[in-house]
């Protein structure tokens, strides 16, 4: 198959990253469960990570030497760490919310309605 013999470039990774991102966004927009929203956030961050890693790779580009190199990977490391931190805090908030309102439905959390 032609598909399988062609080497993969940055663009393919970017597509994957885009799909992950879009899924994450839709998940955030659609899910009523707060944890679901968190999952969406994870997806989004992952999509971004994929992009970073793709850009940092030396193999995937036709123009060698223009990759981000280790910077990209470092950034994606940071993103992972921050995603973990953010997940922890967001979860704490969600748990708080659940404990106070006895529901995890974010649609019920409209007390900030103007």
């Amino acid at each position, binding site marked *: *198959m032609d*598909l*399988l*013999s062609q*080497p*993969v*470039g*940055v663009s393919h990774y*970017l597509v*994957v990253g*885009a*799909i*992950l*991102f*879009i*899924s994450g*966004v*839709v*998940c955030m*927009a*659609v*899910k*009523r469960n707060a*944890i679901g929203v*968190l*999952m969406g956030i*994870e*997806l989004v961050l*992952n999509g971004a*990570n994929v992009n970073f*890693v*793709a850009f*940092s790779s*030396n*193999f*995937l580009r036709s*123009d*060698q*030497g*223009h990759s981000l*190199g*280790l910077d*990209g990977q470092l950034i994606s*490391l940071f993103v*992972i*760490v*921050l*995603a*973990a931190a953010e*997940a*922890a*805090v967001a*979860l*704490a908030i*969600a*748990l708080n919310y*659940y404990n*106070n*309102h*006895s529901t995890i439905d974010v649609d019920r959390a409209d007390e900030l309605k103007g």
Partner: protein
Amino acid sequence: MDAINWHTFFFLLFALVACAFAVGVVLATNIVRMALYLIVSLGATSGLFFLAGADFVAAMQLMIYVGGTLVLLIFGVMLTAKGPFISMKTGGGDWILACLLSGCLAAFLLPAAFAVPGWRNVRHAADTAAVNAAQPEIAEAADASNATAEANSAVATNAPVQTRTATPLGMGLLGPRVDTLDPDDASLVAGMSGYLLPFEIISMHLLVVLVGAAYLARTKRRADSRNPGARNA
């Protein structure tokens, strides 16, 4: 039939898994199922990382993301589940809107992915050398057509590609950048311009997050169905 580029094969495999399960997260209604699909998706992403040569990052993804964050999410799922898993359905209008938006995003992002020519093609010299060993003139032609012939020298020498990134990453986090040493660039001479400062900031950040999360999630009087909306003690 050409030889299978196993890199591409595995890439496609992991990519499909990741995307499919990501979509599955969106479409699933059960929160536990969503969590599972997410785990799979992120695992596949980790594989993608490996394929891109970021071994350390991929390992970290598996360890921290999948093994830590998602487990945390599972905990959250369990802590916030009441009785049989309630299914909260979103209205059709929201779905339409979401799809519309996602379509717009896609229309925006996907062309952008293919925008730069340098991203589309790849000269994997080791692979092409292995694959096209019988066609050296094609490889030379391809080499010749490559603008940056000098930069390919390291790759063209058929030397094994360095994919061990842990040590350089670790060193970079502590300050010196041992992967970019350039006697001409002053900021890169001694290998400075590392990520020591962001590293420390992240550490503090994590500390804060730890404390904050511990505080936020402390034991309080639980509001149950008999007492909805009860506030903190």
